[in-house]
């Protein structure tokens, strides 16, 4: 096969299908991380640079719960998700809201500052060593013929679908969800009808952080954590969010799958290292030619 003059390797359909299926599972993980990011953007119009650092922090929480208390990483969700909500709420109300004066670039820089503080606090306290949770079932799974799927990946896929559904129901069915949507659409109007906008901002940030904490407990059986763990994911999560359309849950889900499959096929055809260029390329092209993404509304 030839592309733009480059000779690409040729594969059978089963290899390509296997690669694409593993891309779907990888994409589910990306979607999971991106969900919280897109919620925060949709409501606060903040590009939360600290998202990756928060993921890393939650991963450490899951790790230490397992290491010190013997808590199963999936069970840890019951602790880290409420913990993430409280942490996110306080972070927005106490730090980001107070220092950013509502200006876009300042918010971006403040969240960058938060990310640097969290990352280096982790480096200081936990050192640069990689740590991973060991569960007895981490290699069990089913053979699909073209590829082998482990249960932990399947759990991540189910988790991302369930969390998307839960978020959507929350936004549509509850009063708080309605208030969040009202603030996202029309800040001043929401304030006029008696919605406490600062509270809603912090709630949204808290839910976004809770999402990333849920993602952490689904990722913990597969990925080792170290202080820079979040950087890789934050870049990919930005790509997913921009591709799907900032603020769109369905967009984050679809964007996650597109990026996951593209990355796996990119690795297959361009090699392990150069394959990652596909993610940066999608990111740049979408930013230039369709900054509202696939499902986003006009800003």
């Amino acid at each position, binding site marked *: 096969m030839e592309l733009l003059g480059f000779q690409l390797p040729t594969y059978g359909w089963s290899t390509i299908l296997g690669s694409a299926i593993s891309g779907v599972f990888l994409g589910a993980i990306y979607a999971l991380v991106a969900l919280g990011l897109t919620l925060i953007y949709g409501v606060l119009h903040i*590009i939360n640079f600290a998202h990756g650092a928060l993921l890393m922090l939650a991963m450490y929480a899951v790790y230490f719960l397992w290491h010190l208390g013997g808590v199963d990483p999936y069970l840890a969700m019951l602790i880290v998700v409420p913990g993430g909500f409280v942490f996110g709420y306080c972070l927005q109300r106490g*730090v980001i809201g*107070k*220092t*950013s*004066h509502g200006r*876009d*670039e*300042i918010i*971006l*820089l*403040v969240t*960058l*500052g*938060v*990310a*640097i*503080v969290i*990352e*280096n*606090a*982790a*480096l*200081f306290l936990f*050192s*640069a060593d990689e740590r991973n949770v060991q569960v007895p079932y981490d290699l069990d799974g089913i053979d699909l013929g073209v590829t082998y799927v482990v249960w932990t990946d399947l759990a991540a896929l189910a988790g991302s679908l369930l969390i998307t559904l839960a978020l959507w129901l929350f936004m549509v069915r509850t009063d708080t969800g309605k208030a969040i949507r009202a603030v996202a659409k029309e800040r001043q109007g929401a304030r006029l009808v008696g919605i406490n906008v600062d509270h809603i901002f912090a709630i949204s940030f808290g839910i976004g952080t809770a999402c990333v904490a849920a993602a952490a407990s689904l990722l913990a059986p597969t990925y080792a954590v170290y*202080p820079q763990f979040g*950087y890789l994911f934050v*870049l990919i999560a*930005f*790509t997913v969010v*921009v591709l799907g359309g900032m603020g769109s849950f369905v967009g984050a889900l679809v964007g996650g799958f597109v990026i996951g499959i593209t990355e796996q096929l990119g690795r297959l055809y361009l*090699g392990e*290292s*150069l394959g*990652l*260029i596909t993610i*940066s*390329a999608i*990111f*740049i092209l979408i*930013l*230039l*030619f369709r*900054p509202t993404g696939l499902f986003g509304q006009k800003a």
Partner: protein
Amino acid sequence: MSERARLMGWALLATVLVLLPFGVTSGRWIDFVELTLFVAVMGQAWNILGGYGGQYSFGHALFFGTAAYIQALLQFRYGISPWVAMWFAAAGSIAVGAFVGYLSFRYGLRGSYFALITLAFAEAFHVLARSLISVTEGGRGVQLALNQDPERAIATFQFTFAGEFLQAYGYYYTILIILLLAYAATWWMERSRFGASLMAVRENEDAAEALGINAFRVKIGAICLSAAIMSMTGVYYVQKFLFVDPGIAYGPSKSVEALFAPIIGGLGTVLGPLLGAFFIHGVGEFAKEAIGAVWEERPGVDLILFGVILILVLGFLPRGLVGLLDTAWRRLTGGRGGHA
């Protein structure tokens, strides 16, 4: 402060920095000042685009890394003199700046979107530097041969085996000369028509366009000047450490280091990046000493503090340390006085 008083202040500061090696004999202090000047040059590069132009880049490593790779590879592969290679390094960085600037500004990316696209380009170059092994040596990095002949110290731009004075202070003066040139260029820019247009674009792009300023061209000019200054830090880095790899060149740390100093020191001021660099590195050194004295030495302390200072300055000192000094100066002189 009057224009003349400020010029005198700069002359005094430059004299102190030039004469420093004659007064301070401790190698550790010279190393500290040298590192601070290096950060202050990166900061000024970022400040031209971010402080004067209002375009916040999250990927300034692009210009550092491109220059570092060109400087290293031209010597490594073709044995080209470092004094010739540096012009290609600068030209390469400027070309990358023009390319990224053309795409971003042509498609009207502003604010957070500009920050994201510069970050994406830096990551793309990071992947390319790691993957195109036949060109860049991949993840192993490029290691230059160490010159051990004192006679050729100047010709090879390597001071490790030079005479006694150059060995101790050669790299200090290299970065000092780069700094003085970069700051003079910024001083000139601030007072030029180009600088005024750039600041007008920062304040209100549409209004600037209405006055007949070509915002697109002004922003391209700013990113090219910024890239040119940043490229010199890449050249300095390669000549000092004789090594570059994808992480050093295009990793996030250089992009982040470049934006700390100007924001903390004072955006859109000539003095800001230098003041910010001295402040954060002074605090960082002090904190490392203090923590090391009562506890064990551990990485991360200085960056935790930089992050906290960054957030505090963003929240409570919008004009940075320069703004603080300006207010203090006005109190002292009892009222009037221009911007610092």
